[in-house]
């Protein structure tokens, strides 16, 4: 028996996993470009959120049809991948169906996989129909052109092919069909191959087997370039997702320091800051104009976004035809972060100023100012993404670094400063209502 296939298999396996690891490292590096943020609080709640939202898909089922189909694909995909373990052992050691010795249990396992494979196939087909024939509105918004649109379909084809290969592999495996154990679905496909010679059958079976495992490795490596990264990132993302009430925006600490100084009658405004702090303090920029100004959870959010558009379809600004789309905010953030990452790769680890930034080159001020901060997008997101926090951080940059708020907002703020109310009324008149 030749061991060439085994060696070939090992090489493909190592290459596949190796390339994936490389990309994961890049991913982690890019995410770490973000500012630090303390997420060590509320550990029990965070675990609970992850279990409920990512593992339990609790937010997916808010839209019952999509939720149900998604759960099938999700469960199916996870469970069928147990089969990969057998494939790897067989591939490396030249065995055939090493686990078949388990007898009835093996039958039950493979039988389950086959049923799931069929269910996944059907669900994915329905997803495809929903996307391409029913043309569900949220998959056809302006930000869903080109790659994002293709990406959504590619993954569906991928899964169809992988599931089909799995069933064909079982159907053409004479040895497996002879066992009459677990081939609950493939027994109905097997007759299609009735007139084939033993040799041809064997070739088909081997081809399906190889394509199946290669397909899985390709799929794994495709993830990095796709919105399907959510398969992996949904877990950390729901763990690190917001645990505070949705209405609570963070209070910028850098601002607190300055405000406390200004308010403290004993503070010496001309004092130089203590040595150790000054270096770090100087670079603090208020708000965000580019991806490095966001915190790493926001960047993780961007990589996790599945482009499902649930946020955008709930956004009141978007529903009334304004340019704002929270999904686009997330996609822009990811695109810009990728661009920055590539720049760093090309320049041996340092970022060469490319004259671009997230604000302006990707996200326009018109989008930012259209947000009502209603949190509908945050509520809708099935994987705990917070587009609103990015919008607010960018508004902060516009207002505090650039004094670039719309004129009416400047009036409002001047009023607050002078009169303690957003309107030009005198603070001394605050109780007038009592006697009116």
């Amino acid at each position, binding site marked *: 028996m030749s061991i060439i296939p085994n060696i070939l298999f090992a090489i493909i396996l190592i290459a596949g996993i190796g390339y994936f690891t490389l990309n994961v490292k890049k991913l982690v590096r890019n995410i770490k470009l973000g500012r630090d943020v303390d997420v060590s609080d509320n550990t029990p709640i965070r675990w609970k959120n992850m279990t409920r939202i990512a593992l339990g898909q609790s937010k997916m089922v808010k839209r019952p049809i999509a939720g149900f189909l998604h759960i099938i694909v999700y469960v199916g995909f996870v469970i069928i991948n147990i089969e990969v373990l057998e494939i790897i052992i067989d591939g490396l050691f030249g065995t055939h169906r090493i686990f078949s010795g388990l007898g009835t249990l093996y039958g039950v396992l493979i039988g389950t996989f086959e049923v799931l494979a069929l269910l996944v196939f059907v669900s994915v087909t329905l997803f495809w129909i929903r996307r391409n024939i029913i043309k569900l509105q949220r998959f056809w918004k302006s930000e869903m052109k080109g790659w994002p649109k293709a990406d959504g379909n590619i993954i569906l084809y991928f899964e169809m092919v992988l599931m089909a290969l799995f069933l064909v592999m079982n159907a053409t495996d004479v040895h497996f069909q002879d066992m009459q154990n677990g081939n609950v679905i493939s027994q109905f496909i097997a007759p299609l191959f009735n007139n084939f010679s033993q040799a041809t059958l064997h070739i088909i079976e081997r081809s399906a087997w190889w394509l199946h495992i290669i397909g899985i490795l390709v799929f794994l490596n495709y993830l990095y370039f796709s919105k399907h990264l959510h398969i992996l990132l949904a877990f950390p993302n729901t763990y690190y997702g917001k645990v505070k009430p949705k209405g609570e925006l963070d209070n910028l600490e850098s601002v607190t320091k300055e405000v406390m100084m200004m308010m403290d009658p004993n503070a010496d405004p001309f004092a130089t800051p203590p040595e150790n702090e000054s270096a770090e303090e100087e670079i603090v920029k208020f708000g965000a104009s580019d991806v490095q100004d966001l915190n790493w959870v926001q960047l993780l959010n961007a990589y996790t976004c599945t482009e499902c558009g649930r946020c955008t379809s709930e956004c009141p600004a978007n529903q009334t035809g304004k340019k704002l789309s929270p999904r686009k905010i997330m996609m822009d953030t990811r695109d810009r972060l990728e661009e920055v990452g590539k720049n760093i790769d090309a320049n041996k680890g340092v970022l060469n100023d490319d004259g671009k930034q997230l604000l302006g080159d990707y996200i326009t001020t018109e989008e930012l100012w259209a947000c009502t901060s209603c949190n509908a997008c945050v509520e809708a997101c099935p994987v705990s993404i917070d587009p609103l926090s990015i919008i607010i951080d960018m508004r902060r940059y516009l207002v505090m670094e650039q004094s670039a708020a719309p004129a009416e907002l400047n009036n409002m703020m001047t009023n607050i400063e002078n009169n303690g109310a957003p309107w030009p009324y005198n603070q001394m008149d605050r*109780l007038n209502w009592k006697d009116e």
Partner: protein
Amino acid sequence: MNELLKVPTMAEYMAQGKQPEVLFWVGCSGSFDDRAKKITKAFVKILNQAKVDFAVLGTEESCTGDPAKRAGNEFLFQMQAVTNIEVLNAYEVKKIVTACPHCFNTIKNEYPQLGGQYEVMHHTQFLKSLLEEGKLTIAGGQYKGKRITFHDPCYLGRANNVYEAPRDLIRKLEAELVEMKNCKSKGLCCGAGGAQMFKDAEKGDKEVNVERTEQAIEVKPDIIAAGCPFCNTMMTDGVKAKDKEAEVDVMDIAELIANAQDL
């Protein structure tokens, strides 16, 4: 109605060496906006009737800073916050009630880190607690059998998960509570939050408040109930834009209760 409102201030309480049970935080809208002032008064009438020991800050109150913060001006927000907190802490305030969800959210969630720790309640929560304590009774009165739909203010609902208190109060009025297609956590914004109240909307096909009002009108209500002075303005404008002022009223829950009691 002619009876004078009793609205003691914290300063007056202090002068007498007393401390009220609860501070009523009126908010900018409730203090200055003509429509919202009516809500403020309605709420005070109920407090007076229920003999609640409360006080207001009056001229010592200032904007919480919510619109500044959401517009991106964290400086101005924190200046406002720190000043307000100083005043509140000087009076040793423990418990605050407000009819504005924006003030509610800011004081409840964003002040603690800056040194302001209080028990904060939205007026619908507070009214419900008065009911439970038996200090207030609500009989259906003029709203019995009326179709009322409730517009969830984003800063009360999604922002802080308060969905039931206002609804419980509406049910107490023996009214028929009808829900819009977007309600509770899926409620549609009125369009005022995030400092939008103070500027023109960006270009689009429609104003948000009109869209929301259409959703409300779809369920054919006699009254659109709100729990936020800003929502109230937006929905009132929406009803006007749809020429429905004759059929649909926009009312705050506090007003509904005050009216039902003939206060």
